């Protein structure tokens, strides 16, 4: 009888299974453990995590570390992925010509057209037919500003609207004899040009502006010719969906939507070489990737974001495996269409416009990671025979097959951080595996970009946890509509906000975006990457590339524990008539521990005595 430990060092977690082998194929599992991986997978620092995990697994058993006969390490597949974003379009407005934003409380409502003038200058102009749009700087108190406007009105001046720096729109409007549209909270008011024709629109509560978001209405207001109308299209588009806006016609105002020269990707297959410009979009790139498959190498134009990413992936992999950079080959990419809110250059109130972008994930596959080296080091440290036990994908499938109710032909899907892996075992026990670029990290990047968070950790939390809206000091409404009450009053900083329900408590989001919009971005990102990649991976390993010929699909790894990925993949696979579910390794471990379990099982099968 021997005690055997199976060790699976993954990108994020190190997992252990301890079994008692009493004869050929006779194994009884005693315990499991999981810790965070220390260092990059495949490096010697991993040993610290492995020893921790071993002790954790041995703790409840009445055995010492020295009682173990053999420690088995997985032969990790050396796959890493990286991601990058290539922006295709951006809006540049030289000489500021628009303000379009959503102050929470603009004043008045309606549409006003007039010439811009500073508040102090108003007293000096004579009454005529000329309507004015008054610029009120932050130095002016609202009561004073309202008084000056009132005086001007009584002199017979026409006031079409006002642009206010502070949050005073409602206060000023309430003190005027007749309501005028007022846009407030305009940060850079000193950049608003004076003496120029301006149009100002405030929609009623619950509505968005109608005129200034339509290029033809802007053309009507400012008497634009067809060529000029073409130029205001980006403005109109950027103003869509806001409650208030100002458009100012400046003589030299030059607005353009610039197409940024994006890089090219060169796909090298066994027989052919194909070039795709990134700005043709994700669909065009992925169609070419499918044509060229199996891929030998992917190159990117140097000096572009994509080129930089490819360099980085190669470098990391070269360092990890002690091989020259030139021998590292990128073997798969995943492209996804996305959009990126970009601050408009020369904006007056921090306006954003959506630029188109393509997100790219790349994956590198090399010879073996130095797991032998790691095994020798571990053996030195703990004084127990340590061996590299077998190919990771094979072990995972053996482990997954211990899930009650499964049988060959069985496929497993493992969505990790950098790559999405799939393997299939047929009735004659042959195993076929694949690794696809694009997984968890890419979803985080998409969420980060599309919501304009500029905070990778926050995006990671949004990916991992459900959302809720704090509706009162004592209750929140979850994203599924259910309500949760609390005995203690919630932190006032959470009040009225969308929060992420992390393990360490609710985390408020600064954004004013609606909960439904954030949920939508999150689910779309997961669909674009996880579901698409799961299907792509299964197609490659399925008999005759036909997913219908697989009977069972089990999800393994940490992603199997996500709160919505399993159901999304399940929905997508339903039309293929495949039984899909989360693995339950040994009937107890859930989707975890498949590889560690597989290692012990494989050892037991070859056990002689």
């Amino acid at each position: 009888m021997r005690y055997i430990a199976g060790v699976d060092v993954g990108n994020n977690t190190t997992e252990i299974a301890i079994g008692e082998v009493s004869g050929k194929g006779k194994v009884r599992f005693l315990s499991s453990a999981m810790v965070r991986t220390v260092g990059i997978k495949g490096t010697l620092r991993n040993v610290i995590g492995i020893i921790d995990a071993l002790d954790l697994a041995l703790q409840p058993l009445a055995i010492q570390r020295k009682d173990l006969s053999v420690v088995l390490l997985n032969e990790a597949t050396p796959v890493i992925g990286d991601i990058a974003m290539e922006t295709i379009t951006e809006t540049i407005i030289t000489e500021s010509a628009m303000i379009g934003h959503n102050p929470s409380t603009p004043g008045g409502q309606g549409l006003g057209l007039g010439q811009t003038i500073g508040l102090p200058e108003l007293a000096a102009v004579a009454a005529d037919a000329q309507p004015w749009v008054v610029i009120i700087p932050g130095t002016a108190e609202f009561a004073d500003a309202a008084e000056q406007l009132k005086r001007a009105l009584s002199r017979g001046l026409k006031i079409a609207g006002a642009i206010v720096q502070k949050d005073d729109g409602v206060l000023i409007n309430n003190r005027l004899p007749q309501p005028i549209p007022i846009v407030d909270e305009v940060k850079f008011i000193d950049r608003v040009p004076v003496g120029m024709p301006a149009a100002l629109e405030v929609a009623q509560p619950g509505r968005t502006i109608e005129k200034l978001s339509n290029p033809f209405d802007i053309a009507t207001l400012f008497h634009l010719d067809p060529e000029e109308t073409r130029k205001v299209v980006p403005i109109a588009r950027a103003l869509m969906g806001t409650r208030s806006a100002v458009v100012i016609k400046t003589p030299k105002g030059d607005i353009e939507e610039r197409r940024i020269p994006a890089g090219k990707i060169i796909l090298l297959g066994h027989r052919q070489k194909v070039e795709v410009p990134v700005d043709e979009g994700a669909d065009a790139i992925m169609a070419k990737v499918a044509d060229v498959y199996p891929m030998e190498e992917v190159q990117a134009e140097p000096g572009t974001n994509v080129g930089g990413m490819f360099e980085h992936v190669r470098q990391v992999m070269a360092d990890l495996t002690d091989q020259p950079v030139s021998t590292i080959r990128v073997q798969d990419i995943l492209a996804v269409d996305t959009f990126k809110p970009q601050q408009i250059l020369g904006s007056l109130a921090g306006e954003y416009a959506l630029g188109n972008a393509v997100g790219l994930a790349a994956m590198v596959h090399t010879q073996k990671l130095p797991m032998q080296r790691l095994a020798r080091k571990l053996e030195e440290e703990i004084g127990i025979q340590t061996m590299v036990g077998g190919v990771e994908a094979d072990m995972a499938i053996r482990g997954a097959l211990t899930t009650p109710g499964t049988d060959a032909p069985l496929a497993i899907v493992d969505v990790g951080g950098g790559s999405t892996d799939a393997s299939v075992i047929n009735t004659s026990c042959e195993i076929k595996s694949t690794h696809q670029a694009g997984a968890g990290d890419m979803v985080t990047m998409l969420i980060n970009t599309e919501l304009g968070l500029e905070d990778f950790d926050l995006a990671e939390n949004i990916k991992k946890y459900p959302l809720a809206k704090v509706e009162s000091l004592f209750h929140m409404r979850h994203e599924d509509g259910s309500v949760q009450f609390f005995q203690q009053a919630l932190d006032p900083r959470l009040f009225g906000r969308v929060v992420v329900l992390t393990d360490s408590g609710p985390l408020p989001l600064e954004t004013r975006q609606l909960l439904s919009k954030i949920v939508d971005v999150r689910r779309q990102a997961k669909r674009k990457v996880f579901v698409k990649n799961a299907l792509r991976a299964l197609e490659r390993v399925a008999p005759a590339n036909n997913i219908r010929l697989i009977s069972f699909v089990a999800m393994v790894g940490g992603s199997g524990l996500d709160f919505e990925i399993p159901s999304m993949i399940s929905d997508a696979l339903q039309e293929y008539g495949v039984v899909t579910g989360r693995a339950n390794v040994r009937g107890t471990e859930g989707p975890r521990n498949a590889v560690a379990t597989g290692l012990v099982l494989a050892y037991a099968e070859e056990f002689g005595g």
Partner: protein
Amino acid sequence: MAELSSIEQERKPTVRVIACQIGERELSPILWGLEEEGIPSEVQSVSGGEAVALARQAAQMSALNVGVALHGGEGKAVLHHRDLAEGAPLFTLPLQGVESFRLRLLGMNAARLVKGEPLLFGEEPVTAASADDPPEVAFERQACGLRPGSEELLEVVVRTVIELLGKG
């Protein structure tokens, strides 16, 4: 408290503001904050009472469940909600030397509490003057990076002082 009980019958859909020994200077900004956020308010003056208790009472009299008390004697402004325990008001603001925009913020938060919108926390209001970085920043950074000997240090300090004076 006789003057309060008479009004307690009719709960109006307003944020109730109770003022006790308080002037326009403190009261007005609170009302402007409420007005800008579009929530109606109602002011009532009382001659005595304790600030937190008054705020709580104001919240109970408001059909919007939100009340504010300004107490000149105790020198504080208190924002309370009907559902909170009496001893645990949402915000308490000392009136001693308080800037007007802080009071306005309190009024805005009272309104936002009614509307269910995120509360505001002490952001300075935008003014035309706030465009440039204050000159101290450069000085602090320089001072932090120092690990020289005492003579050198003295020299640097002298130089920095001269620089600062020059800038001022």
